[in-house]
């Protein structure tokens, strides 16, 4: 996923939480780049740091260390108020619960119109966005009159009208039935076609089937990336590489023998 000008760029992101029971490493040295107009998914087991990573990328939670650059802007070099404005201008964060993304008192049209008013340069108008995401019939409905899928689509439509170049979505289909999830994924694809970069966290295999770029996260670190059907292990800045989880059982005592073949550029990891 490397590119000359990635719109999302994370460098050595580290996130620690001080809890009553001690310090927890939620994200450990994650490097990540996502190109413009790409839909990328972050996958991994619960507690692997997906949501923490997304919140840092969204500019919501500052990392303990590392940098996040969105469209070249280092978010955490900005003061909080400025960061909030930049965030409001550049990206949308779609929460897991559909209702969390919408104002309870606004109709679908009002949701989009207020964003349209904020962005004079919006390329997509309210009516177009509603039509684009199949919400025209619901334009005068308030959120509680919509299904979860419709609410999520409205959230994506809002990103479209707001002219955001990046959408961060935290498990957007986890609370939706199959049809609704499909509709949401179609909306995501339409966003991508419109040039919007979508970074989402998911467990949903339906999502993974339709996403070209997948970043696997384990224990707070990127273990592999997949793109165009190929899976790549990720070597971090310290030279560490993660083995697939299913391989771990083959290494009793968690010890391995390393064989380096510098001539053929082969590195072998063998059980003892």
């Amino acid at each position: 996923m490397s590119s000359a000008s990635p719109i999302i760029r994370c460098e050595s992101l580290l996130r620690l939480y001080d809890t009553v029971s001690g310090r927890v490493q939620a994200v450990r040295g994650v490097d990540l780049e996502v190109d413009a107009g790409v839909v990328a998914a972050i996958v991994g087991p619960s507690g692997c740091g997906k949501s923490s990573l997304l919140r840092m990328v969204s500019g919501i939670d500052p990392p303990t260390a590392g940098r996040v650059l969105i469209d070249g802007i280092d978010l955490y070099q900005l003061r909080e108020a400025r960061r909030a404005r930049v965030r409001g201008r550049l990206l949308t964060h779609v929460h897991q619960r559909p209702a969390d993304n919408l104002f309870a008192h606004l109709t679908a049209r009002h949701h989009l119109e207020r964003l349209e008013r904020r962005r004079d340069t919006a390329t997509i108008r309210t009516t177009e966005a509603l039509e684009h995401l199949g919400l025209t019939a619901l334009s005068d409905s308030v959120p509680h009159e919509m299904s979860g899928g419709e609410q999520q689509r409205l959230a994506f439509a809002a990103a479209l009208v707001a002219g955001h170049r990046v959408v961060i979505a935290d498990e957007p289909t986890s609370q939706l039935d199959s049809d609704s999830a499909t509709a949401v994924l179609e909306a995501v694809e339409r966003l991508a076609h419109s040039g919007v970069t979508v970074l989402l966290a998911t467990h949903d295999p339906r999502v993974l089937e339709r996403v070209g770029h997948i970043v696997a996260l384990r224990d707070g670190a990127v273990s592999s990336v997949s793109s165009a059907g190929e899976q790549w292990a990720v070597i971090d800045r310290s030279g560490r590489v993660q083995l697939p989880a299913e391989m771990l059982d083959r290494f009793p005592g968690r010890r391995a023998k390393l064989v380096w073949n510098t001539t053929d550029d082969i590195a072998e990891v063998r059980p003892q």
Partner: protein
Amino acid sequence: MSWGSRFARWWRWTFLLWTDAVLVLAIMAAAGAPAMLAVTGDYWRSAAEDEVAARIIERQDLDAIGLNLSTEALFVQELVEPATTLVQPEISRIERLGPVQRSFYTLPLTTRADDEPITRVRLVSAVGVLDAAGVANDHTPGGVWISEWLAERFDLGVGDELSIEGTLTADVAVNDVVAGGGTQGGVIINGTYPTVWSEDAEPAGGFWQTLPPVVIPRWVAPFSAPNFAMVITDETTVAQSGLSGIVRWRAPVVEPPTTTSEARSFERSLARFDRVLTQPGPLAEAFARLSGPTAQGPKIETGYDETMDELRSATRTIGPPMRASQLTGLLIGLLTVAAIGPMLVDRRRNEFRLLAGEGDRWIRLAFRAGGQLLLPIAVGTGLGVLVGNIFARTVGPGVAVDGTSVQWLTVVAVGATGLVAASLLAGQIAQGTVESDTRRRLVAHPATAVVGMLTLGGLSALLWVQAGEPVKDGTAIGLGATLLPVAALATAVWILFGVLRGLLGISRAASSRLPITLLLASRRLLQRSGNTRLAVGLLGIGFGLLAFSMVLDAARGRTVEVRLATEVGGVSAFEATGEPSTDLPDRTTELLLRDTQARPGNGLVRVIAVSPGWEDAVSWPDDYGIDRQVIVETLRARGDVLAAVAIGSEDLPRVGAFGRVQTHPYEVMETVRSLPRAGVFGSTLLISAEALDELAAARAETAGQLEGHRSPSLGFRRVIISQLDLPEIEAWADARAVNVRNGQWASVEQSRPDLAATRFAFDFIRVVGMVAALVGAAALVLQLRARGRQNALGGVMLRAMGLSRLRSTGSVVAEVVVSTTLAALLAVAISPVLVGRLSTRFDPSPGALPAVRVLVPWAQLVTMLVGLVLIAGMLALLSELQGARRTKAEVIREFG
């Protein structure tokens, strides 16, 4: 986008809040609290001022506080009548005054009876003077009436003629003038009147008070001293005499003011009359003609000026403590309103997070919050005003609830400040909502907590130190003294939560062995939210203020009671003159008092000689700290010295003597802090009158001396002290022709104006405490409701794991009961300490003995505590039972 659409969006945003009825009610209640306290405080202060005004005015002589207008005049009808005609309507315009009475007093004259000159005679004429002076013989017009003293002194009688030689200012002969009322060349004596004073009586003091003002007018220079040669005559005789003198128009107060505003209004009326009198015009011209060009102008004199000075002084005393109490209440109220901000954000978290996520600045978020809060706060403020009025009308201290006492600008300012504070706080907090819940939950802000804790603790410490400084004025309650209880209670509650959390955290393992109900309660206490702390904290502070007020009330009430018993000596007391009384009524005694100079001790020392049975007739509070029988035993004479008890003195010599001509040696056998009638006098020596007589008799060196022995106590002042009411004692004194004066009545003393300020101030602190406790209870209900959803899910999960519904509910009730009990217990424990520290601030006479002793009304406090805990427990139970109606499926579905 059209304006209609924008308005629709704003309208929807504004009224989004109203979908949550409980939240709206909570906001209204929170906004209503400071408004109610502002209104109630104003009424309270007004009532305090009115009560003081009533107390001060009811002690006044209505004649003395009336209007006295006097002027030098030439008594010629053509001059007197025009001035009277013009001035009377002006006086009548002053409300509260009775009919105007005119009187004449000539300058000193010389009369002759049988060619014997009688100097310094004054002719006096006034309506009612003949009756008031008890004139004998007929009241036919003309002629004069003289005092019996004058009649005896010069051997005069009815029908005798007096010729008068005065300074004539009119071009007429005096004999021509007075001839109109009598025989040519003199005036005929029509009768006599009893001498209104005797040479034995001291003319000062009570004498002037006992005679009708029409006879001995106040404010009129000729009668600044006794006048034996007052000659009463009728008005026609003197008004047409052509003599010079003083004419007076007097109007007594017939309808005394009963409130401060009425008192001020009356003062303004008097001032307006003063202006009318000095302004150029027909009235001024008439007075100028009446008095002549060289005379001073008319003079208004009234005792009302002094009354108003006293009233203003008392009002100044009341104002600061009442304002301090009111301000404390307002601060608590405003903190409550400000707490709405976080509550609003908490309940509308989603909307604020979205707005903050879009980049809205905090001030814009605050504006949005203000939009939602405006209407409920305005309505709440209005309701607070309404409740304040109802409260003042029903429970309050008795004042006209008509809005004139209320400073409406303050009420509006309080509402506006509350709105701004809540909105700004909401804006600040709303900006943080964009952060994830996980981060907020997991990442503690110890620095913020420590700073807050240090600030509050530091403020408490500062106020503690400041409040403990000695004060000269016992009414210097001030803001610091009223804020200290609030700050100290808040600090204590905060520490309690911290300690509790720490203890529960440390004893996690140990607490796991607790019964499941308590275990769950302890775990919930560990995870308490800020809102719950706020609610329980407010409850604790409110209860603490109530406890503080009750302890203070008990301590101060008891102190005043003991001090009045010390000061008055019994239920009533008065000074008596003449010979010692022999047949005193039951439960009555006579004390002998003598003030001595220099010896014994260095300063002024009072000696009190008591009679046998004294101890049964005086009031004897337990606070004296000594048994009365011990005193009685102690006072028995020992050899050639008097056994004495030293009261309230540390520098009184243990062995000494008192008396100048004849000294009496004494030896101090006991020292006590206070005893009846010792008052605030520097040092007092209590002895037995009987022992004093015995000692004096024993020291007589010769039989002759012994025979002519007079009791040394004859030189003492006599004070009769009784457990009977003053009217009964006065009736007894009247029946025996015992002269009494300066009566004191303990119950009357208790309502002295100087005691009113502190009483009203701490009464209002109780109101503040009550409101704070109510707001705390309301906040707790709201919080319980808010947590109801969470508890319901927890309950469902716990029941799924096999926990009975009873235990699940019990754990929630136990949590509320434990935290409320701890907060209330803490408040009860701290209140006596605070009262001990602040007692001198609430003490009207800090130097007086005995000092304020902290009394804790345990029965009331325990009853209140049990009531509070039961109410809190019931609220928790009801909240749980309400939530328990939902099925497991409903609860789980709600949480998605």
